[in-house]
């Protein structure tokens, strides 16, 4: 195994992508993810890859579409306002069934918002974002190591299912420095007979396309894509359970909010409250099964988010609203302190005996 090195979260994403065989990066500068582009600008020319600073996020995502159509591993990264601009291209990538990685190191919104960490693009990431019926595979890292591991996982899943994947991080994850171990991976070349690399006169032309003027055909294509989504939902949901064995109360949080919540859970346990944490690692597919089980086991839920409460809707949905679900949040770039979360847990326990 490779040795541990100290890295910023954003750099870990970049290096992990290179390890995963990504040789094409397109982006447009925006805080707080600029380290990814800076890293790629340094590394790509040395390894025969592409780094291109595009004229906009719109252009960058369409460059990604081109490379993805040719069947090579490719990525772009941005932060919230930039990811909004990418939505058109993301919808086309999804509609043409192409694998690609989009990284969103979220900042506060709406509008120009701020540059401090946020999780308020949860709806955009998990409910579509662009136009039409589609999903992205959405992965939410909670450590620098996961920034790297989930980047690699995202490329693998995207290729396996021909679905675009999104790494949904936040400003804290991007800036945080932690030791990380980057594996040396064998080249993950999976067959892509659909790719456009020239017919060489040996086959009928391939077409990368999302246009179906015949509504029956478009419906059929969407049905087929949703069959694929069903398989993904069945097989690929990931989460971490923490102190859930005997838990009567359940905190649900991802990314930086989950790290804060973990401390609060430990503190609450010391006060005798039987509380645990479920940390979704995939936000789409949402870890439905474990939520349904927790709904049987626990008396109440607490969603801890860096937004006005977005994931809470999925928690309510997948617990079937069987138990109360409360929200503990900060927004606009603010992060809840462990004491705030602890206070919310205590209140939750008191009100749901």
């Amino acid at each position, binding site marked *: 195994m490779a040795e541990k090195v100290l890295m910023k979260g954003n750099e870990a994403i970049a290096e992990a992508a290179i390890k995963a065989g990504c040789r094409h990066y397109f982006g447009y500068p925006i805080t707080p993810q600029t380290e990814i582009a800076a890293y790629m600008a340094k590394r790509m020319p040395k390894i025969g890859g592409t780094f291109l600073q595009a004229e906009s996020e719109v252009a960058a995502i369409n460059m990604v579409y081109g490379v993805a159509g040719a069947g090579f591993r490719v990525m772009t990264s941005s932060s919230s306002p930039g990811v909004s601009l990418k939505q058109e291209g993301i919808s086309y990538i999804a509609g043409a069934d192409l694998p690609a990685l989009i990284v969103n190191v979220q900042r506060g919104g709406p509008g120009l918002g701020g540059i401090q960490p946020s999780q308020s693009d949860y709806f955009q990431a998990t409910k579509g974002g662009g136009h039409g019926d589609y999903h992205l595979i959405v992965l939410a890292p909670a450590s620098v190591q996961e920034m790297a591991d989930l980047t690699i996982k995202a490329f693998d899943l995207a290729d396996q299912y021909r679905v675009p994947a999104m790494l949904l991080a936040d400003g804290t994850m991007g800036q945080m420095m932690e030791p990380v171990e980057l594996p040396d991976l064998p080249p993950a070349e999976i067959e892509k007979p659909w790719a456009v690399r020239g017919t060489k006169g040996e086959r009928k032309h391939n077409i990368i*396309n999302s246009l179906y003027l015949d509504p029956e055909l478009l419906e059929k294509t969407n049905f087929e894509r949703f069959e694929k989504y069903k398989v993904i939902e069945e097989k690929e949901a990931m989460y971490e359970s923490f102190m859930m064995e005997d838990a009567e109360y359940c905190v649900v949080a991802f990314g930086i909010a989950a790290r804060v919540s973990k401390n609060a859970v430990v503190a609450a346990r010391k006060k005798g409250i039987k509380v645990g944490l479920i940390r979704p690692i995939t936000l789409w597919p949402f870890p439905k099964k474990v939520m349904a089980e927790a709904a049987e086991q626990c008396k109440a839920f607490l969603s801890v988010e860096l937004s006005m409460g977005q994931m809470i809707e999925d928690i309510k949905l997948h617990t079937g609203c069987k138990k109360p679900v409360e929200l503990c949040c900060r927004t606009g770039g603010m992060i809840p302190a462990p004491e705030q979360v602890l206070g919310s847990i205590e209140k939750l326990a008191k009100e749901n005996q």
Partner: protein
Amino acid sequence: MVVFEKPKALTDAPFHYCPGCTHGIIHRLVAEALDELGIEGKTVGVAPVGCAVMAYNYFTCDMVEAAHGRAPAVATGLKRCMPENVIFTYQGDGDLASIGMAETVHAATRNENITIIFVNNAIYGMTGGQMAPTSLPGQVTQTSPYGRDVTTAGYPVKVSEMLSTLDGPEYIERVAVNNVKNVRNAKKAILKAFKNQIEGKGFSLVEVVSSCPTNWGMTPSKALEWIDENMIPYYPLGVYKDRSAKEE
């Protein structure tokens, strides 16, 4: 003797274009160029959003359908990951000179080694005849029913003139396809635009002054005359930039 043969680089799919539309001629010229240069097997074409959206059904090479205006960015991605392949885009005026202007200018200024076939018919054909960035002053369209008023709608964009002011691009030429002589010149320009790419010279764009009889509200032959009388005076034909020729 064979007098008329379909280029090999065109599929058997019948064109969906209106009768007398010059998109068909331009497709043919592109296909002939691919045949003559023997590059169809390593070419990837990028179709626009516009009347030529289904160009992916007509060319036998690999094809990608791009979002409206984004073809130069998509082509950039394709070329960067496959420098040995030949990449072209085929775009209308709304696509290239309005919604996709940023992608056009930046691909040009980066001197992306791609070929762009730019079909200027001074109208939004596909959506039923709205004003295009290239619609002429006074031109009546669905969204300029009293004629394009330059005081409110601005002036037409002269793409070839504008791009040729950039240091980046290799080759910019404007041609037309409204008579035999012009078609011959158009063919030569298109061939050159592909050859430049093969020789690694860089960004080559051929603006083709084209007709839209349906939305101009004219017979096909009247539309060809209208090109001579109205389009070409505003959009003079010729080579606007040819870096290598200058250097030689």
